[in-house]
């Protein structure tokens, strides 16, 4: 009979102790795994959400009111289109896709609509300097969007679908659903604005925002039509969430001092804060569980040592050395650490998968790499907790088995 056989038999012999000891480790590791799993999945969800959201930074002229992010550009004062290049040439980390636009209210018959000039993706891509600096997004490593190699996120939010317009010819336009309804417009039809005729490429689906009242046309066509010259009323930017929190806005304000730069503050900051809080909670729990877990295991092993004084005395009497006693107890902690780590991973993952959708509305998938970390952490906690009791057990006299109960 080897010492590992003795250790396993002893563990099995005291099932209630084993259960309570394992429960302590399992719960501790489970809490860490659960929080970490939700936190990692949440971070990914934020990245995808931000990508779906498209632009989250808006550059406006200084005097503009920003009561509503979605309508702040309408009738706003203008600034030169060259500001786009100022941002691009600054190579600020964390600046992803950019989209300059010009918006003005115009009348078509008796209806007020908003005419918005935008640059389609194909036109942005045709500017070599913008490409070199990663204006298309994929070349900017600081992006918080999914990493290269992952499928590019689509604009799932219908409010933002017009931001993904690939081509927009000089006399093409997209019309919002409310405009189409009021003016009885159909796709492939025509629309005349300020004596200029546009072909309707698409009627955008209803979004419930001011975009429903917009007509989107090529920026340069709109500039000519409104005789504004190379002026724009806003630049929409997709800024990396972590870069925003690291002061991207103030850096941009240094480059464009006569502009007003704002974010969809509630969305970005709340999500960033949530992620930060989750990470902090993970860390706090990790520290607490390291302490409490080690003390719990230490207490368990210590109680076990006291209960086994006679057995340890017998082993010492028949010739086992102190190192054998240390080995038996640390081996026991190691076994409990491995089992507790696996059980903790399963419990924590199941809890995260079940609770994630219910409490924070995200679908949580298991993170398999956490299994190794769970086992490692669990072994560390268990073995750390067993060291002092094992040392004390080595001091038990070999004649302890002669003491009566």
């Amino acid at each position, binding site marked *: *009979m*080897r*010492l590992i*056989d*003795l250790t396993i*038999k*002893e563990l*099995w*012999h005291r099932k209630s102790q084993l259960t309570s000891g394992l429960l302590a480790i399992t719960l501790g590791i489970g809490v860490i795994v659960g929080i970490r799993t939700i936190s990692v999945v949440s971070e990914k969800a934020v990245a995808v959400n931000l990508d779906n959201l498209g632009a989250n930074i808006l550059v406006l002229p200084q005097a503009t009111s920003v009561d509503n992010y979605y309508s702040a550009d309408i009738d706003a004062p203008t600034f030169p289109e060259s500001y786009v290049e100022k941002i691009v040439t600054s190579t600020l980390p964390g600046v992803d896709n950019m989209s300059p636009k010009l918006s003005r209210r115009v009348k078509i018959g008796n209806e007020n609509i908003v005419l918005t000039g935008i640059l389609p993706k194909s036109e942005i891509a045709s500017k070599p300097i913008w490409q070199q600096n990663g204006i298309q997004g994929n070349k900017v490593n600081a992006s918080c969007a999914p990493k290269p190699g992952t499928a590019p996120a689509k604009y799932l939010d219908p409010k933002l679908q017009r931001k993904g317009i690939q081509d927009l010819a000089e006399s093409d336009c997209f019309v919002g659903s409310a405009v189409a309804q009021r003016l009885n417009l159909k796709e492939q039809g025509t629309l005349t604005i300020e004596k200029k005729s546009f072909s309707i490429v698409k009627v955008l689906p209803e979004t419930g925002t001011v975009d429903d009242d917009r007509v989107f046309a090529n920026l340069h066509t709109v500039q000519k039509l409104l005789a504004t010259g190379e002026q724009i009323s806003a630049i929409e930017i997709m800024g990396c969430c972590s870069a925003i929190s690291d002061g991207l806005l103030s850096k941009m304000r240094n480059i464009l001092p006569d502009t007003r730069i704002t974010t969809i503050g509630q969305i970005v900051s709340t999500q960033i804060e949530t992620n930060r809080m989750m990470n902090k909670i993970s860390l706090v729990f990790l520290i607490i569980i390291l302490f409490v877990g080690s003390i719990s295991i230490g207490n368990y092993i210590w109680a076990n040592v006291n209960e086994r004084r*006679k*057995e340890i*005395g*017998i*082993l*010492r*009497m*028949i*010739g*086992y*050395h*102190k190192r054998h006693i240390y080995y038996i107890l640390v081996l026991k902690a190691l076994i409990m650490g491995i089992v507790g780590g696996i059980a903790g991973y399963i419990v924590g993952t199941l809890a995260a998968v079940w609770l994630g959708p219910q409490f924070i509305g995200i679908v949580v998938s298991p993170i398999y790499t956490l299994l190794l970390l769970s086992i490692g952490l669990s072994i560390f906690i268990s073995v750390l907790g067993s060291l002092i009791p094992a040392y004390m057990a080595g001091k038990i*006299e*070999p*004649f302890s*088995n*002669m003491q*009566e109960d």
Partner: protein
Amino acid sequence: MLIQINNLTKTYQRHDGAINAVDNLSLDIPKGSYVTITGASGSGKTTLLLILGGLLQPTSGKMKYNAKELDLQKEKDMATFRSNHVGFVMQSFALIPYLTALENISIALNVKENDKDKNRKRALELLEWVGLSDRTTHYPKELSAGQQQRVAIARALANNPDLLLADEPTGNLDPSLSEEILGILKEINQKQGTTVVMVTHSPMAAEYGNTKIQLKNGKLQIIKN
């Protein structure tokens, strides 16, 4: 001479002062002898047995084993001494409750030998020798007191010790079982040539020895050969 002890003293510090459990004791134990130690409670007989078995460090004095002096203060050396040369039989049997009869013997064999099959074979031989070959998978609580003590004796013999130390081996047994156990110890002494030192309260048990020692206040009072 198997054991020679010179001026051995073991002092315990108590709240009412120091007390010598073994007091400046010298004794020779020849190879193959059967020594019984008697004395009143507190006379120091168990303390002497513990020191002989390397379980307790004396306060002063020297001990030679096979003419070689032992460093009684070196815990590591004494553990090796116990596993190589000494077998113990205790009044309370000292069996591990969650191990079967076979495993209780195997665990003693494992100190010196890691071969699982070899150890199992040896443990089965020992159980057969003490008449318990049909109890190999029984746990201590499933055995009678006499059977438990026979398992303890088999374990004590596991590593072929030169010295078998027994502390009140019949203390928990009825008279008929006591005679059975004492008979086994006598057989070990006579047939295997193992030196036996037995502490007992029982005058009947003491008669099994060929050297009878009586202690009083930690000192040798009578030696009868």
